[in-house]
């Protein structure tokens, strides 16, 4: 094999001279007799090795155990996770473990359902519900019929949902009562504390309810949000006495009011003060909203208030039954804000549909489908158009008693 010469020939030659000094240190003379003796000694050692079977000692290569160790570690971690994973919520009906997920209240007395996280609900007489899904941090309950009083313990990651026919009420921690009549398609939700989001037919974006508000919807797809009548007693989380329920209900209303006031205050830094009606509407004060707008001057408001405030005013007018004012506001939005033309057209369609003017509603829905930049308004407009066409075909075009 040809090897490259050293980079430094002088060093190389010096090393060779030193090596020669070692190599030439009195070379050993050949000694055949000693060589034979040494060979015999080696042979004896080899035979002893063979006799002790030490010729090929077992070598344990510890690194070969690494995959096994890794597998065992992973398996142990998996078992640890499974053992440490939180268990799904458990529930009991009237203090007893239920036979299944379908719960029925007797005709004479209500049924109490307690969940392991402290959440509770009361199923009123003849009510029926199904626990369709239960997880570690919440559950999905399908209310088939009847009234329920619900108190959900608030936790950062809790996920509760109550389905009433086509409507879904999403909860993160609250107390409310709900009544569902599947034959009439009527849903009523009275919220005492916290907040819920309601979705369903005729609801373009989830309707967020605050404490003290009442949500009502009917089969025609109309819904209202208004201030609820005086609060009925409702059970608090983990403490089912009526007195505590009343106290907590009052506290809930108070905190909701404070929260609404704080929101109104924070908004006032962005909008003109007299146009900020979101706080009032969230508290169900629709009449006060309209009164403030009239005090300001409707023409002035329509000319100067930002579009999002005008939408709030239009909503308040619709909830209050002031359809003319609502229509006027929406038309003003279409004139002032081209970006909001589609959204305003959709609400004008809903308004016309609620007033029984189905031909006009069809026109507005068509405009909303053409001009809306927001996809969910397009979808809602398509739904509304299909609904109106159905009503026209069945000649049942009558104005809804409910405000859309």
């Amino acid at each position, binding site marked *: *094999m040809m*090897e490259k010469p*050293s980079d430094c020939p*002088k*060093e*190389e*030659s*010096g*090393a*060779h*001279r*030193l*090596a020669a*000094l*070692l*190599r030439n*240190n*009195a*070379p*050993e003379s050949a000694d055949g007799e*000693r*060589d034979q003796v*040494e*060979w015999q*000694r*080696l*042979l004896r*050692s*080899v035979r002893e*090795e*063979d006799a002790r079977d*030490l*010729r*090929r*000692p077992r070598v344990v290569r510890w690194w070969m155990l690494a995959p096994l160790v890794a597998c065992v570690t992973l398996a142990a971690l998996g078992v640890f996770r499974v053992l440490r994973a939180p268990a799904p919520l458990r529930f009991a009906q009237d203090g007893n473990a239920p036979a299944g997920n379908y719960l029925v209240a007797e005709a004479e007395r209500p049924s109490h359902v307690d969940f392991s996280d402290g959440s509770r609900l009361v199923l009123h007489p003849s009510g029926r519900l199904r626990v369709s899904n239960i997880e570690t941090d919440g559950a999905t309950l399908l209310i088939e019929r009847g009234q329920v009083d619900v108190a959900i313990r608030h936790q950062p990651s809790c996920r509760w949902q109550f389905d009433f026919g086509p409507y879904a009420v999403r909860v993160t921690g609250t107390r409310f009562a709900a009544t569902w009549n599947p034959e009439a398609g009527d849903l009523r939700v009275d919220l005492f504390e916290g907040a819920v989001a309601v979705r369903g037919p005729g609801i373009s974006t989830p309707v967020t309810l605050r404490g003290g508000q009442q949500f009502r919807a009917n089969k025609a797809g109309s819904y209202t949000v208004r201030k609820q009548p005086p609060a009925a007693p409702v059970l608090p989380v983990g403490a089912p006495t009526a007195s505590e329920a009343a106290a907590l209900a009052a506290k809930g209303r108070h905190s909701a009011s404070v929260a609404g006031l704080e929101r109104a205050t924070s908004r006032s830094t962005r909008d003109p003060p007299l146009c900020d009606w979101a706080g009032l509407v969230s508290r169900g004060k629709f009449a006060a909203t309209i009164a403030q707008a009239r005090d300001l001057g409707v023409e002035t408001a329509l000319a100067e208030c930002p579009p999002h405030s005008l939408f709030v005013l239009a909503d308040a007018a619709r909830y209050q039954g002031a359809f003319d004012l609502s229509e006027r506001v929406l038309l003003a939005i279409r004139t002032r804000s081209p970006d909001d033309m589609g959204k305003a057209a959709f609400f004008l369609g809903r308004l016309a549909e609620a007033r029984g003017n189905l031909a006009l509603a069809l026109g507005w829905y068509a405009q909303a489908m053409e001009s809306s930049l927001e996809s969910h308004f397009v979808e809602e407009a398509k739904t509304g158009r299909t609904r109106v066409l159905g009503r026209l075909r069945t000649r049942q075009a009558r104005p809804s008693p409910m405000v859309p």
Partner: protein
Amino acid sequence: MDPGRKRHLVALPVPLPAEMTDADLVLAVVKGDKVALRAVWDRHCAPVRATLRSCLGHDDTIDDLAQEVFLSFYRSAGRLRDPSALRPYLLGTAVKLASAEIRARTRRNRLYRLFHWSAVAGRIAQSPDVDDRDALRSLREVLARVPDRERHAFLLRYVEDLTPMEVAQALGIPKGTAKRAISEGRRRVLLRAQNVPALVHYLRSSQERP
């Protein structure tokens, strides 16, 4: 098979162990062939002893260490990566055993540090030149201060005249690592030798000598 053809078959002569290659000898030793082991002994005993003498000088333990080298080979013949590299393997084993012996003696004679070198190095051959004896003793002192791997690489490369590839096989390290060890060993030995009066003479070429 045609019986007529069978008569034409001629048995090939079995090579004598002395004529076998190192690789064949290793394979035979793996099967327990003592004749092959004897052939290995005959072929490599002298180089192994020479390597041990280079490291230890003329020492009473040379024969014992040579026994240990061949016994170690007999135990681990089946695990040789390259059976044809038998010579590097045996010389590498000899160098390592010599280093281990020096370390053991150093530990044993720690209390007798004044006599350390004579105990480790064994007897110096009775060279006719006193300067040569001084130089040899000084060179062993220099080598004793070089780290094991570099010292082994230096001895195998320059004293036993192995190629860097064979040095790598002898020490069980990659070729690049062996080259670096040779270079570093040479640098360290020469650096220290330059400060030893008895060795300076050997570092000069014949033209440089006065």
